[in-house]
């Protein structure tokens, strides 16, 4: 058995604990690296004296030095955290070690941990923080749009706000469900004790934290004027805050790629005996399809942005028309990533909803194979639709009917998810707990989000709606109404398992209802605003649209308050009420709920042998697993 009292800091004086590889060292080395890169970049540019770097004297902005600063800062941060220790040790011939996770104490949440459960909770807090930052950006945007004339934030700062909001949300919430929940639960759901690559898992988290900090720092470097899509050539004109955006997505892209890699490797290789592909929880299927998309799509983004970085620093011509490049190239590369990206956002939500509905309807998942086919179909088809973002851009007009067809077609597998959700409810015994309410909210919201997508996929209709607030309403309904509602469903459902403490049910219901009503009140009028001709990302609008905009802003403030209700619930439940959670508060038949709450460090006492899928509701004698007869211990 593992020794649970292994705390490397036991018995050491406080100051001694600060030395060594930890977050403080990481921050110090990160800041040191930043300054090293900054001054090194200045020295390099002044010393090199090449024509392609001449612009620095005129623009007073040294992109090379900012990029170097960020890169060395991130490198210093990661080294300080201790990510270099194990690879170097292995290079020197040390044997593999997987016992580092077996430490206790709150300190393990503040550094490199190889325990997937610790990483899951780190993700929860880290992503939650940046989600709040992005949400505050949204509130500030709506403050500006209260009046038709720009009056609160100067026009350039408003554009930076818009970009910060979109970029932060897209970068962070891509891992919104996979980060906290898949990391924590995936091994438990498939009967493993760890992820395939524990240190890479930790790396994905800390890369995201570095990325978020870099994006916020863009404010100090002149802001980012392009919106989250970063279109060329505006990207090239921008102040050097744009470099922070490029670094953000580079780091997020690397994090996504590694996260996808890790998830896939774990599910493919580390399933417990008896866990066939047909017995996998549907949430795991959601994770698998998402991970495949992450692994393949994120590198495209990274390469597109690397080209942009070269264009910005050393004046290459990838996206500059007079030098032989093309702005269309960036649009295509970005959306070739961007469309699978939005399915990366949607698929985990599908997985969460279909995972939770059986539990709260007390029925097996209806149409398991159809649901899997839907997820796989969405993942495959998501590669074939990206040109619908470019319908009126001047692409070859022969392409448009095909992409209209492929985009319409992707609603068919998405519809399978709806069918399975509705089928699961049929003749069930529905319990209206808070996680269930959020799942039902998903059904409502994603219905409207998906249907508005049909409008956008139709080329003649897209002529009206492209680049207008209709698009904003569509993607907020699918991403916020879809992903974020399921994010909260997952929180209320799994946080008792992860922390061992129940969240307050009454506050949860208040949170749900305020959020649901405020959300619809905020985003439904945006469909109308788009139809009435209001373009996106504008700081001023015709004065006859002020009434609707004011209604939307007021609703958005209420939506923000609902988030505070959640925060209050979290703090109250975790710090003050501290109601202990039973092992199986929801009566789920899934494997992770057969373990105690919170899950012990070693996960399973014995790796179980799987005998059925986790949806055996109503079936006499159905059991997911029984303890294995194999001796315990070892890294199975």
């Amino acid at each position, binding site marked *: 058995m593992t020794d649970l009292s292994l705390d490397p800091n036991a018995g050491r004086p406080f100051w001694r604990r600060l030395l060594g590889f930890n977050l403080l060292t990481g921050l110090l080395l990160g800041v040191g690296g930043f300054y090293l890169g900054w001054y090194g970049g200045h020295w390099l540019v002044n010393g090199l004296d090449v024509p392609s770097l001449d612009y620095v004297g005129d623009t007073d902005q040294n992109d090379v030095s900012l990029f170097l600063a960020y890169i060395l800062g991130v490198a210093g941060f990661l080294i300080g955290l201790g990510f270099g220790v194990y690879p170097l040790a292995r290079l020197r011939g040390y044997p593999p070690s997987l016992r580092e996770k077996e430490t206790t104490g709150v300190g393990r949440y503040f550094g490199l941990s190889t325990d997937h459960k610790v990483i899951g909770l780190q993700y929860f807090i880290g992503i939650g923080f940046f989600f709040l930052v992005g949400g505050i950006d949204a509130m500030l945007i709506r403050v500006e749009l209260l009046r038709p004339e720009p009056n609160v934030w100067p026009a350039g700062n408003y554009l930076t706000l818009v970009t910060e909001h979109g970029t932060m949300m897209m970068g962070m919430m891509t891992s919104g469900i996979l980060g906290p929940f898949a990391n924590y639960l995936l091994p438990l759901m498939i009967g493993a004790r760890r992820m395939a690559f524990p240190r890479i898992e930790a790396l994905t988290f800390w890369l995201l934290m570095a990325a978020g900090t870099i994006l916020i720092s863009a404010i100090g470097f002149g802001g980012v004027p392009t919106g989250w899509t970063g279109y060329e050539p505006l990207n090239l004109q921008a102040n050097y805050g744009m470099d922070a955006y490029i670094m953000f997505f580079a780091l997020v892209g690397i994090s996504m790629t590694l996260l996808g890699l890790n998830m896939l490797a774990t599910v493919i290789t580390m399933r417990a005996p008896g866990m066939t592909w047909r017995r996998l929880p549907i949430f795991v299927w959601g994770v698998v399809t998402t991970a495949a998309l992450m692994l393949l799509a994120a590198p495209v983004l990274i390469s597109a942005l690397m080209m942009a970085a070269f264009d910005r620093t050393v004046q290459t011509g990838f996206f500059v028309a007079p030098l032989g490049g093309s702005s269309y190239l960036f649009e295509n590369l970005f959306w070739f990533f961007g469309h699978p990206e939005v399915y990366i956002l949607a698929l985990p939500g599908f997985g969460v909803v279909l995972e939770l509905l059986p539990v709260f309807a007390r*029925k097996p998942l209806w149409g398991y194979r159809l649901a899997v086919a839907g997820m796989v179909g969405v993942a495959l088809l998501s590669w074939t639709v990206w040109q619908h973002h470019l319908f*009126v851009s001047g692409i070859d007009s022969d392409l448009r009917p095909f992409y209209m067809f492929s985009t319409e077609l992707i609603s068919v597998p998405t519809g399978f998810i709806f069918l399975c959700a509705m089928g699961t409810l049929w003749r069930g015994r529905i319990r209206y707990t808070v996680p269930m309410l959020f799942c039902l909210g998903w059904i409502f919201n994603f219905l409207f989000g998906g249907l508005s997508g049909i409008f956008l996929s139709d*080329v003649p209709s897209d002529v009206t709606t492209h680049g207008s607030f209709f698009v904003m309403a569509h993607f907020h309904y699918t991403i916020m109404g879809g992903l974020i509602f399921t994010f909260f469903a997952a929180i209320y459902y799994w946080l008792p398992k992860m922390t061992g403490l129940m969240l307050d049910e009454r506050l949860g219901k208040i949170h749900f209802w305020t959020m649901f009503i405020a959300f619809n009140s905020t985003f439904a009028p945006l469909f109308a605003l788009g139809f009435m001709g209001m373009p996106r990302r504008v700081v001023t609008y015709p004065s006859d649209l002020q009434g609707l905009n004011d209604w939307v802003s007021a609703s958005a403030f209420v939506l923000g308050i609902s988030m505070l209700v959640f925060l209050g619930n979290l703090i109250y439940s975790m710090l003050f009420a501290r109601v202990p959670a039973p092992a199986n508060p929801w009566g789920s038949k899934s494997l992770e709920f057969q373990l105690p709450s919170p899950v012990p460090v070693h996960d399973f006492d014995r790796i179980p042998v799987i005998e059925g899928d986790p949806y055996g509701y109503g079936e006499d004698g159905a059991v997911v697993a029984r303890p294995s007869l194999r001796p315990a211990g070892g890294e199975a």
Partner: protein
Amino acid sequence: MRRLGPLGRILVVWLVTSAIAMTLVAVFLAPHLPPGSGSKEAAGQQLDNEVLTLVSVFVVAGVFTYLGYALIAFRERGDSDGPPIRGNGRAQTIWVVGTTVIVLFLAAFGTYQLLGGAGGGQGAEPVFVPAHSGQSPLQVQVIAQQWQFTYRYPTEGDFESAHLVLPVDRQIELHVTSLDVIHSFWVPALGLKADANPGADNIAYVTPEKLGNVQIHCAELCGLFHGYMFGSGSIVTPSAFASWVASERRFVAPVTHYLPAYSTTYLPDPSFRAG
């Protein structure tokens, strides 16, 4: 009604409510959907929007009817589990076939509308050229720059103007290009949206059918004053157009000879580069 099972009753309620809702929408909402009938293209696009709205109403009515029934009828009773129904082959087949049929219909309908020219900017080699009667199309070049649209009339004396004035009932062939970053030329009332890319020519066709002023917006974020890149254009009678051309030509005459030769793209000088 009593002899139908619950699913049958749901089906009947769905069909009835969707019939009522679709009729109400078709009568009261559909005529007000964008983009209106300011041009032939806009009318085609409005028809698309109407069809899509009706299909959406149909789908929403179905899902809501089902959920309304299920969420009330199937609430928990005591502590028991529900029946272990894991699927229903027939229901799945009907759904798959039904949704595929709807999708194929919408795709076909959209393509049919596209062939009628309802499709905004089509790039440098447009395929869906709407038929025109009478005069040849009027060529107008829309030059997008940060942060204003200007318009060049190559066949009317090759002058450039800050005003968009178009004759009614004549097909206009618009060539949209940009001098710097990506913009998008959007005239909602005419059903016209075409992105302006540097070094690219984006052709769109429009036949205005109503006199009056139209709003023009930029629909692609192009920098600091993107939100201010709006204006208005006028659709006037052909004689008013001719007299406007004459007076505008006189007004801009001092600068017309400075303009570069008309071209579908004007590449900027690459010496202004970097950072």
